[in-house]
């Protein structure tokens, strides 16, 4: 039986990381008996192991809840959103599929960077906000102060905002009541040409791509010919339906206002990109829905198998991940130092880390990756503009007129006592101060223009450690700015190691070069000869260290006839060697690469 539109509510949950989004979702599923309590596992919407471990949502998910109130049955479609800035576009599409959003604020922490960023996104989409104050069970909770902050900073009436504990379940029923009361029901014309917004797509081994949609206008059913309006690709619809918590429930059709899925034997998520509009070939819509954009990778790095024999396995793994991740790009590249591998593009550093971890964990690959890079625009004397995301393609400095690097519009939220340290950090990271606002007595918002390449290394870690974890951070890209860039080259024993090169602002070259030289010295084990470590810019060495020759590595002692013990010690040593890469005559352990990625703040 179809639910009348006035009994449908489409909503998202938005929150700063760790404010309890997934836990609240779990409780809502339980309360509406969408999932039987015995089947409940923590964070059911986060079905990747990684999501559960990191406590973040990487992919969007959706589920239909059936909720009874005053004898009426409501269909509540919960569209979960990824909670990280790398996936901002996916968040925006999920929000566009809704009429309302539950805004969770942690009663112990108050408003954070992503609280506001997500709120603004939700307001951009004209969503009705349902504020919820979570974690009232914690001793440090101060729901009234947080409610006042929400009123002051966001301008939302929080008097009736449910004060809940998603953990214990206390007052969670009030959230459902508020959703029904505040979120408007969807509109739309069942008989108009189909316009369905793709807010997520997931590859499934059996069904092909499962396209998650919100129907804005029209109707779709099995047998229809669906057309992706951005790409023009057409497919015959095999099945449409709704989402239970752990399974799909086929239905006869999907109508305007509803949230559901479509399968049509689509082979890759690139054919059903998030943000695209589905219509039918039989009765096509004149215009697609607004807001589609192809998300482009922002951060690039080379990924190589630690063992060259794993090249094919790495390629297959990347292809499989790409089936499900339209934002991941890769193409083969060859490095003199690392052999055959792939230049991969990511939305951001978290995206990069997630992909690396999934490759290592789910596909059992041992990887070596290069320093991440952003896309630089290099203006050549001849007038040509090169987009360089790979230091090995950096042109001869003599040919360069000027360079540009991508900038971000960054917002940092923090208690006022850390303003000084944050300003220092942003200064070090070549930030341009723009503004500082007191959101409340104990919450400050700092706005900076920060170069993207200063953020992608370890900005977030540095910010967290310098502010004892209290500051939060959000950014969006805002175009390119002229910059003075140089390429740093690393030479070991006189040989250039292409995989260790990277592009950096010239002001930072010396400091960075010294740190890299030191790190390499500390991380390259002594070998039978002395190894000079040199860092050069355009042929000029600007930092130098030496790894002294190994003099002593011997089992002098006689262990009687215990040969096995000797053998085991050597085996261990050989194992260590396997994790090393040969660069000409020099062996470099993977840790040395990692050490360069995570240069400490000092």
């Amino acid at each position: 039986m179809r639910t009348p539109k006035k009994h449908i509510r489409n909503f998202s949950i938005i929150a700063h990381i760790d404010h309890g989004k997934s836990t609240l979702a779990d409780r809502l599923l339980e309360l509406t008996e969408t999932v039987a309590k015995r089947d409940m596992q923590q964070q059911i919407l986060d079905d990747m192991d990684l999501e559960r471990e990191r406590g973040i949502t990487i992919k969007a998910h959706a589920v239909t809840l059936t909720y009874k109130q005053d004898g009426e049955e409501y269909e509540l479609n919960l569209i979960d959103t990824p909670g990280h800035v790398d996936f901002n576009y996916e968040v925006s599409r999920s929000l566009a599929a809704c009429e309302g959003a539950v805004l969770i604020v942690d009663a112990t922490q108050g408003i954070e960077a992503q609280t506001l960023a997500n709120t603004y996104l939700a307001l951009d989409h004209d969503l009705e906000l349902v504020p919820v104050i979570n974690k009232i069970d914690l001793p440090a909770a101060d729901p009234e102060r947080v409610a006042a902050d929400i009123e002051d900073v966001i301008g939302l009436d929080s008097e009736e905002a449910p004060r809940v504990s998603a953990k214990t379940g206390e007052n969670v029923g009030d959230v459902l009541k508020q959703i029904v009361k505040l979120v408007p029901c969807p509109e739309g014309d069942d008989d108009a040409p189909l316009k369905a917004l793709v807010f997520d797509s997931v590859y499934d081994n059996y069904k092909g791509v499962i396209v998650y949609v919100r129907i804005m206008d029209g109707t779709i059913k099995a047998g229809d010919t669906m057309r992706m309006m951005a790409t023009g690709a057409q497919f015959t619809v095999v099945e449409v339906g709704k989402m239970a918590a752990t399974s799909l429930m086929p239905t006869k059709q999907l109508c305007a206002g509803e949230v559901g899925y479509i399968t049509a034997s689509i082979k890759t998520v690139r054919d059903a990109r998030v943000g695209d509009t589905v219509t039918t070939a039989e009765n096509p819509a004149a215009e697609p829905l607004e807001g589609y954009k192809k998300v482009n990778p922002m951060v690039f790095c080379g990924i190589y198998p630690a063992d060259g024999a794993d090249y094919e396995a790495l390629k297959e793994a990347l292809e499989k991940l790409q089936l499900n991740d339209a934002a991941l790009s890769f193409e083969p590249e060859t490095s003199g130092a690392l052999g055959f591998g792939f230049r991969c593009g990511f939305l951001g550093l978290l995206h990069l880390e997630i992909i690396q971890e999934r490759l290592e964990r789910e596909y059992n690959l041992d990887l070596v990756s290069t320093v991440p890079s952003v896309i630089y625009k290099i203006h050549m004397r001849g007038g040509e503009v090169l987009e360089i995301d790979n230091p090995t393609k950096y042109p001869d400095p003599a040919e360069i007129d000027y360079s540009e690097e991508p900038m971000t519009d960054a917002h940092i939220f923090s208690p006022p006592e850390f303003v000084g340290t944050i300003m220092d950090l942003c200064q070090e990271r070549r930030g341009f101060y723009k503004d500082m606002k007191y959101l409340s007595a104990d919450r400050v918002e700092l706005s900076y223009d920060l170069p993207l390449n200063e953020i992608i290394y370890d900005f977030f870690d540095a910010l967290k450690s310098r502010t004892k974890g209290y500051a939060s951070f959000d950014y969006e890209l805002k175009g390119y700015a002229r910059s003075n860039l140089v390429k740093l080259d690393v030479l070991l024993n006189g040989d250039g190691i292409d995989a260790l090169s990277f592009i950096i602002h010239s002001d930072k070259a010396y400091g960075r070069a010294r740190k890299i030289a030191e790190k390499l010295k500390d991380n390259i084990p002594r070998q039978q000869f002395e190894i000079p470590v040199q860092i050069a810019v355009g042929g000029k060495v600007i930092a130098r260290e030496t790894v002294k020759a190994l003099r002593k590595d011997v089992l002098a002692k006689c262990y009687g006839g215990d040969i096995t013990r000797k053998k085991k010690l050597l085996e261990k040593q050989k194992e260590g060697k396997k994790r090393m890469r040969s660069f000409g005559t020099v062996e470099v352990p993977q840790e040395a690469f990692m050490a360069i990625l995570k240069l400490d703040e000092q």
Partner: protein
Amino acid sequence: MKGLYIHIPFCRSKCPYCDFYSVPRNDALIEKYCDALIDEIETGRRTKDFTENSDMSFDTVYFGGGTPSVIGAERLGRILECIRKNYTISADAEITAECNPSTVDDEFFINLSSYGFNRISLGMQSAVDSERHSLGRLADKNKVLSVINSARKSGITNISLDVMLGVPSQTMESLDETVDFLLDTDVPHISAYMLSIEEGTNFHKRQDSLVLPDEDAVCDMYSHLAQRLTQQGFEHYEISNFAKSGFESRHNLKYWECEEYLGLGAAAHSFINGKRFFFERNAEAFISGDTAVFDSYGGDSEEFIMLALRLKKGISAQDYYKRFGCSLPLSFTEKAKAFITSGHMTLDGDTYSLTQKGMLISNYIISNLED
């Protein structure tokens, strides 16, 4: 023929650097332990799973520890007698006992010699009093000299002295004092071990407070010692061992040449019929009849290379071929080239061996060559 090793796990006191298996001396336990050794030699019941169809002929017998001398010459003689009765011991067998110089005298050696022991190894460690005390060794230079004389008087002239490098407060000068002493004694065999701090030892517990010579200094000491000894006619025949011609430890050579040996007693290791096996580090368990435990299969190419490269004579391609029926692995010969260039190895005819500089980083070289 095989080598026979007998472990005597008793000591007067535990030296702070030592991680060999030993327990405090205790007469009742010593008696039971010797009975157990004799029982094992007579019945072979603790090792029968490994020694079936194996010929029990030996041309070396080595009593190690612990401190074999603390159980007295009579007990050592009783065990050796039992060995002769039950196994075949060749007429020219090398029969060694490790001795602590502070607990032996003329009578001890007269007895020892009369039972047929013809070699002793003395744990002196250093000729410098302060160094020796920090190592828990009591016998001073004069005592060691008198012990050597006693042994010689009894007819035992094949004597080895142990010294250590890199011990607390050691310097080049103090090392020279020790080397002077070694040369004065005119013993034909010297073992020189670089101190390594092993887990479970007293040194390990207080390693933060130990003042040890740094790695470079220890390397310099090693080279200096080797130079002085070789100048005086010693051959540096194994990483830690020096001998006048004909006085190499025949028993220890069996380990390095991948030959067979039977080890009896707690913590003793064996290699027979391609299998390495051992007894747990537990004297009570040995007494109560616990059987030897399988360790690993031995004697493969990697092991052979690992052991042979400890010896100055190294690996000849021909010997390798005789043993394994194939040439040395290509990866070995290829990688050896870099070490020959860097002065860590030599290739003489078809024989690869480590130079003294190479011996100091033998682990590194071997793990590279076998990669």
